[in-house]
């Protein structure tokens, strides 16, 4: 392998976004760092599977989320599901001005299922397109879209808010959010 063209040289620059995704996904810095570590080792040893010229950030995010969900499946078999502990907890409505307090928002976000957190971070916050998210998560684009809508609805529910007038057709927010960052490395 010619060391000058080793795609692994680019790994360090992706560490901040990889870690940010891990933290958003599992809501726990220690677990996030273990995930990032596993992802680095897997990426390093499987670099021959990376197609040069494609989006390395997407490739790394995919390894990370696959690792996360396979560990989670394994754990689920070993111990009883603890995910349900917080389910159903509702927060008080936000202050009268209607603005979402960041603290409440984080609490609500952390209560979402990992699948919902994942799709909201990937398709919304980190600027991947629905098509890219579909490829990364191994589901159809339509599934990504409906998952985003359900995740948003659940988030609103947890925040004690009404989803508003524009649930599915209200692509305004979604589209803007995606268009605002797609094409730009959010890292």
């Amino acid at each position: 392998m010619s060391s000058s063209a080793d795609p692994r040289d680019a790994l360090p620059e992706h560490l901040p976004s990889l870690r940010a995704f891990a933290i958003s996904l599992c809501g726990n810095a220690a677990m996030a760092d273990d995930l990032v570590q596993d992802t680095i080792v897997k990426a390093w040893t499987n670099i021959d599977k990376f197609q040069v010229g494609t989006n390395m950030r997407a490739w790394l995010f995919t390894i990370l989320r696959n690792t996360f969900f396979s560990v989670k499946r394994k754990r689920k078999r070993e111990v009883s599901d603890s995910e349900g502990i917080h389910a159903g907890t509702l927060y008080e409505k936000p202050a009268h001005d209607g603005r979402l307090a960041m603290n409440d928002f984080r609490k609500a976000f952390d209560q979402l299922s990992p699948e919902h957190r994942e799709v909201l971070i990937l398709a919304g916050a980190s600027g991947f397109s629905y098509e890219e998210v579909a490829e990364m998560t191994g589901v159809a684009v339509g599934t990504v879209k409906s998952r985003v809508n359900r995740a948003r609805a659940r988030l609103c529910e947890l925040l004690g808010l009404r989803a508003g007038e524009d649930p599915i057709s209200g692509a305004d927010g979604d589209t803007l959010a995606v268009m605002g960052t797609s094409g730009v490395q959010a890292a």
Partner: protein
Amino acid sequence: MLQAQIDANLKKVYQDALQEQVPDRFLELLEQLRQKEAKV
């Protein structure tokens, strides 16, 4: 309006995590992997 706020807050969740200092252990790990490979 609400949707826009949710989008903004989601971005903030991610951006806040993005701004955290990446622990040195990851760069050290990459260096270890590199050295291990150089030996074989």
